């Protein structure tokens, strides 16, 4: 058992990091094509090794700690952002057997771990002793906090329908019935969309990327960071988006459930598809303003999430939902 735990953990970590690295390349390529550019072309065939080159570059850079920064927190925060973002991946089942941590309380734990990522982000911003970073940090916390509520609420919808907080059970339930976005569509689809919105906000992605809003806050939280520490913040964002896509696929798109072939491929396929759609959004939308984000979360998403939860509960009481 323990050996299996080790192997599957390493495997999932490798899958996540590979897909992230590939995702970096894919995003730049996709964005390039969307913008009548080519994207990376030089490093490796069709620029495939670009993320590796980026990593090598970042690793070599000089680490600079600003004068008045809180040195310990400044140094510790970026690796922690990546760590928390990665940890969530452990809870996502990539196959009926391939889940490093098949835990009965998976859903609340995923939300909790995902939400934790905001603390190192805040640490990074605060420790920099830079006004832009601090504004970014405060925005990050406020945004994470506001969108945490709809995130929990929409994640409750599959929990109620499947009657379990275990992600594998939820996927199994979707396997037996339908994928949640397919049926009950009036519950699954809105919940899915709300979940994606809240997840984007938690991962600080456009249109919710106000914490790093580089046209306003220069680089927000990561303003003072150099080298690999900057890389960690960057990586955390990507991992967060990727793992968020994986969670959304698990909760709403049937996870590893597919008509044929190995389940892990289906999971990766769904995740990457969702990931690409998120990048499509990213490259076509402008960002919202901080106060608009807050208004959107508290005024619309929270009540909508509550309504969905109650609707799901009503649905399970009806003969069709039993």
């Amino acid at each position, binding site marked *: 058992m323990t050996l299996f735990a080790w192997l599957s953990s390493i495997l999932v970590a490798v899958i996540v990091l590979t897909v992230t690295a590939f995702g970096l390349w894919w995003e730049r390529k996709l964005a390039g094509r969307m913008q009548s550019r080519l994207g990376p072309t030089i490093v490796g065939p069709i620029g495939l090794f670009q993320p590796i080159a980026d990593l090598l570059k970042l690793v070599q850079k000089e680490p600079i700690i600003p004068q008045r920064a809180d040195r310990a927190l400044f140094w510790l925060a970026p690796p922690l952002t990546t760590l928390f973002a990665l940890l969530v991946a452990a809870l996502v089942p990539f196959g009926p057997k391939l889940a490093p941590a098949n835990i009965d309380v998976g859903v609340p734990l995923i939300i909790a771990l995902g939400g934790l990522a905001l603390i190192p982000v805040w640490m990074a911003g605060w420790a920099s002793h830079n006004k832009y970073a601090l504004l970014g940090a405060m925005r990050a916390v406020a945004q994470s906090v506001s969108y945490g509520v709809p995130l929990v609420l929409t994640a409750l919808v599959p929990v109620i329908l499947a009657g379990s907080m275990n992600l594998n059970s939820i996927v199994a339930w979707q396997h037996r019935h339908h994928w949640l976005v397919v049926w009950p569509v009036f519950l699954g689809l809105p919940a899915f969309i709300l979940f994606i919105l809240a997840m984007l906000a938690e991962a600080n992605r456009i249109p919710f990327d106000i914490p790093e809003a580089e046209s306003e806050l220069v680089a927000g939280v990561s303003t003072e960071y150099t080298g690999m520490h900057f890389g960690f913040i960057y990586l955390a964002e990507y991992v967060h988006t990727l793992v968020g896509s994986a969670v959304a696929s698990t909760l709403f798109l049937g996870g590893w459930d597919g008509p044929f072939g190995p389940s892990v491929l289906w999971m990766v396929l769904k995740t990457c598809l969702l990931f690409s759609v998120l990048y499509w959004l990213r490259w076509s*939308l*402008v960002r919202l303003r901080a106060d608009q984000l807050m208004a959107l979360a508290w005024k619309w998403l929270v009540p909508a999430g509550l309504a969905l939860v109650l609707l799901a509960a009503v649905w399970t009481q009806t003969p069709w939902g039993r």
Partner: protein
Amino acid sequence: MEATPAWRKLPYRRLELYEPEGDLMTLQLGPQHPSTHGVLRIKLHLDGERIVKAVPFPGYLHRAVEKLCEQLTYVQIAPIVDKNDYVAPMTSEQAIILAIEKLLKVEVPRRARWLRSALAELQRVASHLLWLGTMTLDLGGALGGGGSVFVYTMRERELVLDLFEGLTGSRFHYNTHTVGGNRHDVPAGWAKDMHAALDLIEKRIPEYETLTQNNRLFVERMRGIGVLEPELALELGVTGPNLRASGVDHDLRRDAPFHAYDEVATNVITAKAGDCLARTQVRVAEMKESVRLARAFIDGLPEGPLVSGKPIKLPGQFKVNSGQVYAALESARGELGTFLVAGAGTSPYRLKIRPPSYHAISALPYLLPGHTVSDTVAILGSLDPIMGEVDR
């Protein structure tokens, strides 16, 4: 238009009257900031994220152009000043030539005037395209949707620059206007290329509209932000699309025609709201109008000489000892005026440029308070300032 809220004007004058709930934070936005359109510094006093007071500090790009021009002959000035408005050098150059021609009382042939009008309209399209791109860049960031629009508009701006290159041999600093006419005549097939480019641009403007002013997120960011009241705009001397977006129907192309604008009627586009969205709408509509005008000017390009009198060989050919003139044209950013006092000999005694951008950014202290840091870049971007022109 509702009355100006008291908090918008008062705290600007008296920061000590403002009672924040937290501490006030002083934030320097610029000069080295991604969204200050060159090197502008704005000192922001923030309560949380809300701006209490904003003080712009221009001057980082001051190159003493006006002083330099006093040392140059009338012929040499044009290529110097077309570096002022580096987004629309063509009109920047035309403005100075207009003033010199007015001072020297030089007649400009009709063909040159029509060609200048066509070039001015092309330049307006190119300038507005760049503006739209940077505007969305400010809103969406280089890592987001803004980057996409920016790349698209740059792609179309290239078409215009290619045309200019075909005509003058230079992509940016043309020096195509001489006193009394134009230096470069239209090459064969240029008009056809221009039509092709204009057709493409016209076809793609609706695409930008989809991405910007018809996009819910974009509208949410722009509507009601940075409302410039017409009274304030007039008082500050704001001109061009910024003024027209505030509902003031004023356009030099119609109200004080220069070039050949007295022969082809211009539709002046105005909007009521005076906010960032209105400024966007006015500029996008102006692009369409400019495409129409440019077509009209190139189609109607009369035959005849391009330069009046002899071609210039020596700088000393023009000599004026007295007199002063003010000439203005409607550049992409508004009234670009030149006040010229003749000096002894072949160079001016004093040259003063009235850049529309300078007046636009003078509205910032009034527009910014009450908005958030995010709105700063939206408001600044929507005013379309070119710092080269502001600082000169």
